[in-house]
C-alpha cells in the first residue's frame, strides 16, 4: 500500500495563483476544476497555499461579522475535535444541541402564548367595562334626543374584538350596533401603549380627529409638553360608511346639534361627525355589503349612539402640564385653565384612565380626580427607600392595578385602585 501510494506524484503543472483563487471561489469551468482538483489531490504544497488562503478569507469574514465568527468557531470546534479522534467523521455529534434548542424554542413559544392570552383577557375586561359605561351614558342621551329605539339597548352587546378583522367589520355593518374596538395598541402593554399614544399626541396636538382616535388605554402627558389627555375613549365605528350611511351621519350631526348635552357638557356634534368619519375603515368595493332600508336605519341608530358617545368624549377636558409645572385643562376649543389642586406644587405627569385623572409631581405628590379635575384627592404613597422624588410615571394596567414610579426608580403598585400601595 505504501509503495502504491508513494507512486502518486503531482499531476501536471502547479496551478498559478489565479487558478487557485478561481478554484476556491468556484469560478472555474468544469474541466479546469477537475484538472486543478487532480493536481491538488497529489500536491501538498498547493493544498497548503489553498488552505492558508481559504483560512484567511474565513477569518477575515469572521472578523467582519461577529456572528459569523461565533458560527465558524462552533463549526471549527465541532469539525476538528470529535471527528479528528476517529477515522470516520461524526458530523451528528455537532447537532447534539438541536433537541435542546428545539425544546427551548417550544418553551418560549408556549410562554409567549400564555402571556398573550392573559394580556388579551385583561384588555377585554377593560373594554367591556368601558363599553358598559358608554352604553349607559349614550342610552340616556338617546332617550332625551331621539325617540328611536337604540339598537344598543335591544341587541346584545357585541363581542369585543381586539383586532377586528377588516372583512368581519364590513360584513357586520348591520349586526353590530356599536363596536368599541380595543385599543390599536391592544396586545402591547399599558406602558408601551402610553408611550405610543404620547407620541401620537405630540404629533397630532389637540386635533379633534386625534381626540376621536384616542384609545381607551391610559394616556399621560409629561411636564412641559403640550399634550392632551382624554378622560374617556371616543367610541369608534369600526364600519365603513357607505353613501346612505354617510347621509345618516350628516343628518345626525345637524339634528342633534340642537339637542341638549347628555352629560352636562356641550355636545360637539361636529366633532362627533368627524369621529364617525375619521375612524371609518374604507372597505374594498367588492366586499361592501348591500344594505337594506332597515339596516340603514339600524346603522343610523348606531351612529347616534356613536355620536352621543363622541359627545361624551368631547365633554371631557384635555390636560397638560405647562413649563412651570402647573396642571391645566381645557374643554373643547376653550382656553387652557389652571386646574384647582389642593396645594400648589410642581407637577410632572398627568394620566387619564377610565374617567379618573391622576397627576403626580415633585416630593412624591400624587392626586386623583373623579370629576374631571373639579375636586382632587391626595393619594398618600407609603415611604419607600426614603424616596421623596418626583413622580415620573403613572401606569395603568387596569383601573384597579396602577403603578407609580418616581424618577429615582422607586415604584409603588396598587391593585385596589389606590387604596393600598405596595
Amino acid at each position, binding site marked *: 500500500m505504501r*509503495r502504491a501510494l508513494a507512486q502518486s506524484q503531482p499531476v501536471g503543472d502547479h496551478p498559478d495563483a*489565479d487558478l487557485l483563487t478561481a478554484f476556491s471561489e468556484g469560478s472555474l469551468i468544469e474541466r479546469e476544476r477537475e484538472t486543478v482538483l487532480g493536481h491538488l489531490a497529489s*500536491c501538498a504544497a498547493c493544498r497548503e*497555499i489553498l*488552505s492558508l488562503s481559504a483560512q484567511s478569507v474565513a477569518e477575515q469574514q469572521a472578523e467582519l461579522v461577529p456572528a459569523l465568527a461565533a458560527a465558524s468557531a462552533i463549526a471549527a470546534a465541532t469539525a476538528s475535535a470529535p471527528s479528528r479522534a476517529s477515522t470516520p467523521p461524526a*458530523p451528528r455529534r455537532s447537532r447534539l444541541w438541536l433537541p435542546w434548542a428545539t425544546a427551548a424554542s417550544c418553551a418560549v413559544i408556549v410562554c409567549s402564548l400564555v402571556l398573550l392570552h392573559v394580556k388579551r383577557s385583561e384588555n377585554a375586561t377593560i373594554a367591556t367595562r368601558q363599553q358598559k359605561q358608554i352604553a349607559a351614558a349614550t342610552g340616556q342621551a338617546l332617550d332625551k334626543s331621539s325617540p328611536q329605539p337604540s339598537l344598543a339597548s335591544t341587541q346584545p352587546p357585541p363581542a369585543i374584538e381586539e383586532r377586528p378583522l377588516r372583512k368581519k367589520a364590513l360584513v357586520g355593518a348591520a349586526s353590530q350596533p356599536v363596536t368599541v374596538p380595543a385599543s390599536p395598541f391592544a396586545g402591547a402593554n399599558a406602558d408601551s401603549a402610553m408611550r405610543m399614544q404620547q407620541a401620537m399626541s405630540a404629533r397630532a396636538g389637540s386635533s379633534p380627529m386625534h381626540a376621536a382616535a384616542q384609545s381607551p388605554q391610559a394616556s399621560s402627558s409629561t411636564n412641559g409638553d403640550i399634550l392632551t389627555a382624554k378622560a374617556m375613549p371616543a367610541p369608534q365605528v369600526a364600519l365603513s360608511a357607505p353613501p346612505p350611511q354617510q347621509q345618516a351621519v350628516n343628518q345626525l350631526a345637524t339634528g342633534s346639534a340642537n339637542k341638549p348635552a347628555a352629560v352636562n357638557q356641550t355636545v360637539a356634534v361636529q366633532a362627533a361627525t368627524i369621529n364617525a368619519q375619521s375612524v371609518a375603515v374604507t372597505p374594498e368595493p367588492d366586499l361592501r355589503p348591500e344594505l337594506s332600508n332597515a339596516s340603514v336605519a339600524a346603522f343610523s341608530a348606531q351612529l347616534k349612539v356613536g355620536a352621543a358617545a363622541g359627545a361624551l368624549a368631547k365633554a371631557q377636558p384635555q390636560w397638560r402640564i405647562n413649563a412651570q409645572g402647573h396642571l391645566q385643562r381645557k374643554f373643547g376649543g376653550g382656553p387652557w385653565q389652571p386646574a384647582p389642586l389642593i396645594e400648589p406644587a410642581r407637577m410632572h405627569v398627568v394620566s387619564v384612565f377610565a374617567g379618573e385623572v391622576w397627576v403626580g409631581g415633585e416630593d412624591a405628590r400624587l392626586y386623583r380626580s373623579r370629576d374631571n379635575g373639579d375636586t382632587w384627592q391626595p393619594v398618600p404613597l407609603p415611604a419607600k427607600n426614603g424616596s421623596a422624588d418626583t413622580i415620573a410615571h403613572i401606569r395603568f394596567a387596569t383601573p384597579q392595578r396602577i403603578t407609580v414610579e418616581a424618577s429615582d426608580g422607586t415604584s409603588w403598585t396598587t391593585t385596589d385602585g389606590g387604596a393600598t400601595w405596595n
Partner: protein
Amino acid sequence: MLPEASPPADLLGLGSKLRDIILARYRESKAERYSIVPEGFLAVVAAVIARYGADFSESEKLKLVASLRVEELVLARACSAGNNAAWDDFMAHYRPALYQSARFVTRDDDAARELADGLYAELWGLPNRDGRRISKFDYYMGRGSLQGWLRTVLSQQHIDRCRSLKKDVSLDEQIEAGVPFAAKPDAPLPIADHGLTEAVAATFAELGAEDRFLLASYYLDQQTLAAIGRQLGVHESTVSRKLEKLTSALQKQIRKRLQAAGMDARQCDELLQELDVRDLNLDVAGNLQQERSVESF
C-alpha cells in the same frame, strides 16, 4: 514567468461570437475609465484565452470569457501600465485589504507589514535586467477576484518565506536542539502483505480526483472538515458525509479484492481488523509524502 505577449485578436482565431461577447464585456469593464480601448481589451482577453483555454472548445471559451472578472482585470492592467486613476482606485479599494489579508496570513503584525510591503513593491513593478519595470499585476488574469488573488499570492509568499527560514538554521541551533545526536527513526514495522498492497493500490487508482483530494486533505494535511469545505465550496457536513461514505467504500472494495484474490471472509476480517481504516490512514499519511518544494509561480 511573464505571460506571453498577446498577439492580435484576429491572429488568435477568435470567432465572431466570441469577439462580440468580449466587446460586450468591455462595456461592463469600465475600461474607458483607464483609457483602455476595445482593441487593447480584446488583446488582454485573447491573452487570457491563449493561456488557459488554448485547447478549449468554443463553448468553453465563451464560458471562460463570461467568467472573467473584467473590471478587476482592466484595473490590474491599467495599474501595470502606470495609470494614475487605476492606482488611485487600487489604493482606495485594495490596499487596506492587502494589509489586512497579510495580517490574517501571517498572524503577526510586523511580518504582515513586511510581507504586504514586499508584494506592494512587486505590484508597483521592479525593473528587470533591461531596466523595464515589470509589475506583478501582469500575472493577474481575472480568473478569480483580485482580492482573492492578492491573498493567494500573499499565502504563497508567506509559505515560501517560512520554508526558507526553516532551512536557515545555524549549526549552533541544531546542536542545541540535539539534531546531530538524534536517534534514527525506527524502520516501519513489516506488515503482513497477503496481497493487500495490490488491493489497496488498485482501489486507490480507481478513486476520483475529489475523493483523493478529500483523503489527502483530511488524513494527510490534518485539515478540519470546515477548512476542506471552504476550499471546495461545500458545507462541512457534506465533507463529513463524503468522507464517511468514502472510507466505508474503500473498506468494502479492499475486502472484495482480497476475497477475489482467494482470501476467505474470516482472514479478511482479521487482516482488516489489524489494518482498519485508521491504520490504513496512518499508512497513507506516512506514504503520501509528496512534492513539497515548489517553485514560485
